[in-house]
């Protein structure tokens, strides 16, 4: 089902009575180079708890910028993001917020080259009050869950692209976050690996009931989500439910 632009904009106002709203953005604007580049021009979205949403749009439409704002990596020039009702602007310790609440999966995997698979997965855990033994056990379980038990001691350079992304997914789950943000998670993968990664993300969503927001330019990838928000020129323009 596809809605038109005006109905998409109607998505924006939050329904204050809906306590399942997990994250909500209103009127997000983000400019670069003193306003010369307008990455976001008033983007709105509302995502319910446990939803798997894809934000699809062409390159340069502002979707990665939006994801960074949702993940508290950056701040909007205008507009507001509310995370479970609390404005992100009011959160003082954004690093602690990211460490506990958000898992990131990036297009380029972003693993630390000098650390093994087991160590890479433990990196976010250093911010948690866990012992070294706890960290190790949790990381081992996660690595097993993404099917890389036999690669646990390997360095990232010894892994294929698909395997690296699996490590990155295991890392994103390290601190049991409530929200998983994936920025073009299959962008650097061949189609077979891409399919397997999308299956893995789907399984994680189903099993853990996590809220997931994925940004992609690829419609074949976007269809794995339960809802697709289309974005053009820094705004949401349409919504679609692929499985409806």
């Amino acid at each position, binding site marked *: 089902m596809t809605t038109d632009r005006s109905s998409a904009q109607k998505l924006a106002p939050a329904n204050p009575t809906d306590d399942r709203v997990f994250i909500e953005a209103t009127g997000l604007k983000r400019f670069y180079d003193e306003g010369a580049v307008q990455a976001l021009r008033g983007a709105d979205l509302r995502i319910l708890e446990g939803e798997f949403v894809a934000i699809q749009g062409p390159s340069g439409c502002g979707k990665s910028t939006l994801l*960074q704002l949702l*993940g508290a*990596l*950056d701040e909007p020039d205008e507009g507001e993001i509310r995370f479970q009702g609390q404005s992100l602007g009011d959160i003082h*310790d954004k*690093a*602690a917020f*990211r*460490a*506990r609440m*958000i898992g*990131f999966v*990036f297009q380029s995997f*972003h693993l*630390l*080259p*000098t*650390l093994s698979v*087991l*160590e890479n997965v*433990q*990196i*976010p855990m*250093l*911010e948690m009050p866990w012992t*070294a033994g706890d*960290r*190790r056990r949790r990381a081992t379980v996660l690595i097993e869950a993404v099917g890389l038990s036999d690669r646990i001691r390997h360095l990232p350079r010894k892994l294929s692209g698909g395997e690296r992304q699996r490590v990155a997914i295991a*890392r*994103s789950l*390290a*601190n049991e976050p409530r929200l998983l943000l994936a920025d073009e998670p299959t962008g650097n993968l061949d189609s077979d690996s891409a399919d397997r990664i999308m299956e893995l993300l789907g399984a994680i969503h189903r099993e853990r009931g996590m809220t997931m927001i994925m940004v992609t330019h690829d419609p074949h990838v976007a269809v794995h989500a339960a809802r697709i928000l289309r974005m053009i020129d820094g705004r949401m323009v349409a919504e679609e439910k692929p499985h409806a």
Partner: protein
Amino acid sequence: MTFLTVIAKNLLGRSTRSLLTITGVAIGIAAVVAMTSISRGFMKSGNRIYSAHGTDLVVSKLSSQTPVPPLFEESLGDQFRALPHVEVADPVFVDILSVEDKPMVLFFGWEPGSYLWQHLKLVQGRWPTNDTERAVALGTLAAEMLERKVGDKVQILTGEFTVVGIFESGALLENSALVTTLRQAQEITESKGLIRHISIKLKAGTTEQDLKELYETVRTRFPGLRALSANEFMESNLGIQSARVMSWATSAIALTVGAVGVMNTLLMSVFERVHEIGILLAIGWRRKRIMAMILLESVTLSLLGGIVGIAAGAGFVKLLQMLPRARGFIEGDMSINLTVLAITVALVLGALSGLYPAYRASRLQPSEALRYE
């Protein structure tokens, strides 16, 4: 895995850069260790001459800050013997001469009956105790350097002296020295009736108060002269002072170069790792942890550089001691103090040079850092 594992892996994973940084610090610390060790060794060796003699006070001219003190009238020396608390007051002639092809040789002249001879151990021949005889005794190192044995001749300035004895001293500087009688020393240096200082032994039971009175007496009765303890006398020596200043100046330059090197390497490593730091920030590392990571990397590299530097510095001094030109003048003093000092300097160097790169890294904006390729 702990936080320290991450730091260790960061350093090991970039082994070439780590090794270069360690080398840079090691050179700086080695210079500090070598220079300080040499200047302390020189001081210690000088002090040992006086402590071996049993000299308590040294009287010299007020402006005696040159490597050898200025000359003054020997006749003044007689008056010191009569001062209260003074047991012995013996005149000393000393000079640094060029002897044959050796540029810097210590040359002493003592009175035949002086207590100053007593601490030396004659290993061959006899003492040159005849005022009219052109005879000289050589320290073991001097004999080796000049390639002379008992019975040989040695040219000192315009005179030819016969080597009549070889001696050994607890002080390296004396081992590389030549000793003759006061008269012969004055004659050959054309300094008749002149001496460099008076070495004084005090009577047993002399108190601090007595000593103060003695200093006061010297000050009022002998204007232009001053009495210093053997240690103070060495400290006031221009040679020692300039060695110390040189040592500090060279150390400071070496350390500055080392610090700039470490800072440069770390800054490069921060710029190279902007993306990686962005990832760490994105996955929730606090800025404080990023700062601690870079600082600890810096301190670890400096500490390792420090350890290598201490070994290299000590090795360098040992090597210098073996060089023909330096033999007899260079004696390293590698004390625990110096090791602790070098380690402390390395740690401070690491912390200071890591501070700015760590600050830069911790101030990165995660979204910008992630975009950085």
